[in-house]
């Protein structure tokens, strides 16, 4: 964007049109960021804002429809759905961030090393990457999680195994593009070591694209973890977790509130990450920028 455009935008447009333009440019990403912040806040303050305790069983009040006492109703054991939903945000956000951040860091380093080392090392790393990518993620994660046993940590490990290759492939592509840039040659001439150039020069330059992928991917990881939990592999009951809450209410079509609300929670949080990722991509890539 050139200076003239900025001047036009800030001085000459009437305020309503300026707002509309701002909304078009940053609206989607801001909405996404807002949704994520809200859920983060809920996760942090869950014990303070929840009306009940997440695992208080109250059989006399089981399967109550939404009411003033229980805003989102109660489940088959009489537990408050709203409370479990608020607590559930903790597991979802935590697993989503852990899986994506750990595999992004690991995958980026591995991919960066591959692109920089070239030759046999690159060949070996990329074949291993391809090998993991030739399994459908859900099925491989399912097999590993089943082998390791039910539990949050084991499911996170299973997801990490299937998650890093896409980052290493992406990072390799980005580094190969950067490697031929003049500033890398300059750094080599000055005598910096390859690892220093990779970590201090190349990765910072390629980080933008990575951030988009990472942001979009947290939503993906949250859905996958919830899915594995839904299948009975994620958390150990009675841990409040959205996927397993949907599973508990799956047969209860009449008592729709038990399964609907936790699923809606997953939808909103994932939508938040996708809005944010989509918005960031628009800023970073001028070609796809919407006018």
């Amino acid at each position, binding site marked *: 964007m050139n200076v003239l455009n900025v001047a036009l935008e800030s001085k000459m447009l009437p305020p309503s049109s300026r707002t509309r333009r701002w909304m078009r440019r940053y609206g989607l990403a801001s909405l996404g960021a807002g949704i994520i912040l809200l859920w983060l806040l809920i996760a942090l303050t869950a014990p303070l804002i929840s009306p009940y305790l997440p695992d208080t069983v109250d059989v006399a009040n089981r399967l109550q429809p939404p009411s003033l006492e229980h805003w989102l109703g109660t489940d088959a054991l009489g537990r408050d759905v709203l409370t479990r939903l608020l607590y559930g945000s903790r597991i979802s956000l935590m697993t989503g961030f852990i899986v994506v951040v750990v595999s992004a860091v690991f995958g980026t380093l591995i991919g960066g090393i591959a692109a920089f080392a070239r030759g046999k090392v690159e060949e070996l790393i990329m074949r291993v990457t391809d090998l993991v990518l030739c399994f459908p993620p859900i099925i491989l994660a399912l097999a590993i999680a089943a082998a390791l*046993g039910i539990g949050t940590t084991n499911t996170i490990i299973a997801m990490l195994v299937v998650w890093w290759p896409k980052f290493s492939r992406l990072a390799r592509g980005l580094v190969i593009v950067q490697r031929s840039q003049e500033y890398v040659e300059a750094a080599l001439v000055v005598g910096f070591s390859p690892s220093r150039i990779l970590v201090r020069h190349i990765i910072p330059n390629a980080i933008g694209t990575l951030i988009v992928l990472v942001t979009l991917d947290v939503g993906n990881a949250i*859905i996958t973890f919830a899915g594995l939990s839904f*299948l009975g592999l994620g958390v150990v009951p009675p841990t409040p977790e959205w996927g397993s809450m949907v599973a508990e209410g799956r047969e209860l079509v009449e008592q729709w509130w038990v399964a609907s609300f936790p699923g809606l929670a997953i939808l909103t949080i994932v939508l938040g990450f996708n809005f944010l990722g989509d918005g960031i991509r628009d800023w970073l890539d001028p070609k796809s920028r919407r006018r």
Partner: protein
Amino acid sequence: MIRYVVSRLGLAIVMALLATLVIFLIANTVPGDPVLAQLGDVAASNKEFLAQYRAKWGLDLPLWERYFIFLKGLVHGDLGISIATQRPVIEDIAAYAPATIELATAGFLLSMLVGIPLGILAAVRRDSWIDHTARFLSLIGVSSPTFWLAFIMLAVFYGGLQIAPGPGRLDSIALPPPAITGLFLVDTLLEGDWDAFRDALGHLVLPSVVLAATTLGLITRTTRASMLESMQQDYVRMARAKGLKERAVVISHVLPNALIPVVTLAGLAYANLLTGAVMTETVFSWPGLGLYTFRSAAALDFPAIMGITIVVAVTYLLINLIVDISYALLDPRVLR
């Protein structure tokens, strides 16, 4: 061209072999002794019986020897015996596969038939309400957890409005058609049984819509992006300059080039649908590979899990191979 195909094929075979090794290692180096897990405490406390049991299943052999035995069986189509169903895994897979193929194909066609036109419209009418609606719909599609969407569809259209049939492939009182292909739609047609055809089709609607939702978003967005990219090319400007109508420009100049990336994605999407129907099938009690995978995982039925993972990985590799080859046919630059 032939050289390209052969080299891709060779690579696929190597990958498939490595994949079997990975699966074998996952299933055989798990923490926790599978023998103890299967036998129970009383039998496991008998040392002699334990040794006999290990010898019977070849579990006393070194790991590499077991892998070769496993591989030898694999070559003969022997994937082992399922612990849960006590039947050969390969027979189980053959019995469950048609339901998945039928469902995945329906979902695939649905997402292509809606996604590609929607993506084209969104690109041609960029920044219009169609574009925004398409973007919003695809974001919703990508963000909805499949298992939840399946539940909502069932709750609304089956439980609430009662306009859709319930879970399963047919009404619970109906008998399945004689197994010719195992695809109910095809079999009922071959039999000329229209009522059963309608029944099977009705049961297919909700699960295929649910399955299509995620893919639809991806297809729409890729088509749109690829169309926009093509529309900025010189040959398009040229076509416009020589006075072609916009419709003709889009149909005969932009589209053929824009659809190449969509072909790649479509192949991958079909592979994903075939292998990723676990959630949809579980909620809709659809007797396909997804449901089989879920049941095997829940029962820790390792021969079954290993078998299904191998079949799925090979399918995945095969579809990727087909995509690569068709890509080379569509875009000869790949060969160079």
